């Protein structure tokens, strides 16, 4: 089980959405972390053969995935960022249709759909039209369709986008449950989505792989320290300008700032353990995640 990405580049009229990206994935959950516009969706679209790369290769066990064609897509489960569906299909019909698209025989598909509806908690909604489902239910239907063929490669593009906190936790747990014996690549710009479930995290910026490794590896890779500093109201703006501040917590008389800095930023600053969010801020800056994701 080896999904290898070698020197992958996607050029849109001179703009490199993915730039010389190389990585190798085997069994496990991989979190692809990057700000909106980092190139995560483009990378995933190439991994799902929806888009051909400008240069570079994607291979599955040594074989080019585009040459493998249907043989590769048979291994795929994909939940896109903008998960589209057939609005007038019931959940059951939708899943049966996707099962047919995945080449699953009707008798097997019926059984599989039944199991997945139970797993994603949509048994009661099976006859509801897709367009009437809530955002969370649609996402669950989305993960069910991705899992229909018991894929070896499960690609989830921003699967928690638009979900409320409880749905987000539920979804995270569901992905954890489904991650056994397969490659799960999950893209997000929300650190907490992958912090607890990803074995490896890939940080992507401007189409390139910045750093990868376990959560601990990535945290350790940060050359700066994290400090908690209590400052007065009048000093907040000065600190925000001088330092990378990953969190501002208002307290009586001022604020408690979480500062990323090589040196002790203020006299009263106390060094604390860094988190993945701090690393995210360190690599992507304070404006991370403000742009719309178009690539």
């Amino acid at each position, binding site marked *: 089980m080896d999904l290898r990405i070698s020197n992958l580049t996607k050029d849109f009229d001179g703009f490199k959405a993915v730039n010389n990206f190389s990585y190798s994935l085997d069994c496990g959950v991989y979190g692809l972390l990057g700000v909106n516009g980092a190139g995560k969706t483009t990378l995933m679209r190439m991994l*799902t053969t929806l888009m051909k790369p400008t240069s570079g290769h994607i291979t599955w066990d040594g074989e080019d995935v585009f040459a493998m064609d249907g043989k590769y897509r048979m291994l795929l489960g*994909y939940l896109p960022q903008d998960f*589209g569906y*057939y609005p007038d299909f019931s959940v059951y*019909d939708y899943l049966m*249709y*996707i099962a047919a698209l*995945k*080449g699953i025989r009707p008798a097997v598909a019926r059984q599989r759909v039944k199991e997945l509806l139970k797993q994603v908690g949509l048994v009661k909604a099976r006859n509801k039209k897709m367009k009437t489902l809530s955002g969370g239910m649609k996402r669950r239907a989305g993960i069910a369709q991705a899992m229909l063929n018991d894929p070896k490669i499960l690609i989830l593009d921003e699967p928690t986008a638009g979900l409320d906190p409880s749905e987000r936790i539920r979804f995270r747990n569901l992905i954890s449950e489904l991650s056994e014996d397969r490659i799960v690549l999950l893209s997000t710009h929300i650190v907490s989505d992958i912090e607890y479930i990803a074995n490896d995290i890939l940080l992507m910026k401007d189409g390139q792989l910045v750093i990868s490794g376990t959560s601990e590896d990535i945290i350790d890779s940060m050359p700066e320290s994290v400090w908690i500093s209590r400052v007065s109201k009048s000093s907040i703006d000065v600190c925000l300008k001088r330092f990378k501040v990953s969190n501002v917590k208002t307290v009586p008389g001022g604020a408690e700032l979480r500062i990323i800095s090589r040196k002790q930023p203020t006299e009263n600053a106390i060094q604390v353990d860094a988190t993945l969010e701090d690393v995210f801020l360190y690599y992507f800056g304070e404006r991370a995640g403000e742009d719309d994701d178009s690539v």
Partner: protein
Amino acid sequence: MIRYELKKIFGSVGGKIALGLYIATVILSCFLAANGFMNVDVKWVNEQGESERGFQAVQKLREARNEWEGYLDQEMLTKAIQENSRINATPEGQSSNVQKSNIAYGWKQGFSPIREMINRSYSVGFRTYDYYRADRISVIKEETFYGNRTRQLKDWLYDKTDVAYDLYTEAEKQYLIGQYEKLETPFYVDYHDGWYQFLENAALLPMLGILIIGYMVAGIFSNEFKWKADTVYFSTLLGRNKATSSKIKAGLLLVTVLYWAAMLIYSFVTLGYLGFEGGNCVVQLRVWKSLYNITFWQAWVLTLICGYIGNLFLTALTMFISAKTKSSVIAVTTPFVIMFIPSFLQGMTDWLDTVIAMMPVSLLEFYQHLGTFNLITIFGKVFRVMDVSLPLYAILTVALVPVIYQEFRRKQIV
């Protein structure tokens, strides 16, 4: 998978409304045609000079026409002229009072198609028509009656002052004359108003139908993008092959079932109500100048086949536009543009008329083309436009299928 494609179409409110509209169009067409409210006014003018409609009127008209059933030979032509003169000589025939004139007209209903042919045969020129010409004829000859048709054609074609002189090549003129001379005479006359009514109105249903069918199939490919379902669709095992061909099959199945169901229902309701008799009569009984030496039932078969090929081609073209542009709006306008553009351009120039006659919409109005002289010369051989456009659009439809398939399956999601 075809079932799911059809479900995508008919699952939506728009699809259901379109289907309802299609069924309503069929029902309305049947009702209007059967009751004589369409192009052909099937009615019976009674002894009081009043018009009657409905099944009883059809029965009376049929009985009257049946008295004139047989070969339109010397004997029948003479009989028709004599009867026409006799009626004209009656006080009702002489009267300028509308009611009385109607009574006289009512007496002529049995042989009115024969009287109409005499008017056409004995009109002065090929392109003239005199409604009262039969009233001025006292003696008629079978040879002249049929011979006038070809003679008038020749006079028209070789009249240097007429546009026809330069309009057709010598080969085309000979072809036209040859077609006229090939027509077997004498004609067999029978009650044929059922066929006449059907054929006169046969274009309406497929024309309205294709607009509705066009709406149904316009989203067959583009809706995948509109609904953003394309990413999942193309990432599946069969999305780029079997599922794509299922879409094409669903579109073609849809048009096939809807077209044939509508046209067969329409045929059998119209003919069942107005009568199946007269199918073996030549179309020249109604389209005197027609180049097509065929009977009414043959015209019915050709009308259905041409309409089907036309519908099939326009459906395939709409699907292609849908796959190419990813836009249902552009796709749905395709049949509209193809249907209505010709009507704006018609009559501007003769060559343009021939081009328009080659448009797929002409296949939907086959009967209307029976009376036209649109010819095409290919490698020195002369053809009627319909002889070319029918196989041409059948081939184009078949050729479009792999083009649609390749167009959609190669789509990349950007």
